[in-house]
């Protein structure tokens, strides 16, 4: 398994299509935590469960002001159909051309399969990776790790 860029590393900047005529740049979210969820493919059973799970947890992510971005090498039309079918309420970004370029930057590309790993990154408002995790491809990593990482970003209350 690849070892994803680790905590303390500035997150590589990128700009990817979220719809045929709109792009999302990582820098757009500066000042807020960002969750990057790389996954191998739209439609495959584990990914679908994982994305469906995150869709249910968006409210919790939002409590931390965090933005969730799903990323795979699927093309934008595939993403649109998948997001529509699963009623996803967060953007799916197409790491499609050049294929997997962003996954490679984060060191979570699987050369053999031509897809990304199932990998999670939590970035702080300054664009620095604060937590990363690479799951076995067949295992849905859940969301507890993401929530603990978001909590750790919170300023400690002064009492």
């Amino acid at each position, binding site marked *: 398994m690849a*070892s*994803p860029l*680790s*905590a303390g590393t500035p997150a590589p900047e990128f700009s990817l299509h979220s719809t045929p005529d709109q792009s999302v740049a990582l820098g757009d979210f500066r000042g807020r935590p960002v969750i990057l969820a790389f996954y191998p493919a739209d439609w495959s059973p584990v990914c679908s*469960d*994982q994305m*469906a*799970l995150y*869709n*249910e*947890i968006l409210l*919790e992510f939002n409590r931390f002001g965090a933005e969730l971005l799903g990323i795979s090498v699927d093309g934008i039309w595939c993403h649109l159909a998948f997001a529509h079918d*699963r*009623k996803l*309420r967060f953007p799916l970004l197409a790491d499609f051309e050049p294929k997997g370029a962003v996954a490679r930057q984060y060191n979570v590309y699987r050369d053999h399969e031509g897809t990304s790993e199932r990998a999670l990154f939590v970035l702080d408002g300054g664009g620095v990776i604060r*937590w*990363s*995790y690479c*799951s*076995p491809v067949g*295992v*849905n*990593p*859940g*969301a*507890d*790790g993401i*929530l603990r990482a978001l909590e750790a970003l919170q300023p400690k209350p002064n009492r």
Partner: protein
Amino acid sequence: MTTSGEAPALSPPVGARDHAQGPASAPLTLVEYGDFECPHCGRAHPVVKGVQKHFGARLRFVFRNFPMATIHPHAERAAEAAEAAASHGRFWEMHDTLFEHQGALDDRHLETYAEAIGLDRERFLRELRDGAHAGRVREDFLGGIRSGVNGTPTFFINGRRHDASWDAATLTAALEAELAPR
């Protein structure tokens, strides 16, 4: 730090607020996070029944709600209906009924089930309408996320997430292994 994939512990642990079948002193506690509209949970239902029969008083079974409301439009109401039944002391009757009628979980059917298991119809409808048990369902859901629930059904055996398959043979073997002396 890049953390390992160590599954977190069941949180909160099984306690008085839970719906449980079997003795609290049982050496085995099986917790299911489930969704009444989820077809996988529907298939797991008879598996759990079989496991309960097999282990008898050695097993305590606990059910917690984890409605995946976006993909299962009736799951949240069904969970609230089960909690409403619980407030009448009839949780398990409703739990079983819902899993046995997964294709008919709209409000009209929920009302029918409530009457069939002897709930006060007016009170049941009022509680459902007011979302009286929505908070409880949400608590279960959030606890599930914290515990590493990653889809439905997710099982925990004595507080640890069971990541292997939940077919009858695998689940039984995992529970037997827990009983074996170490």
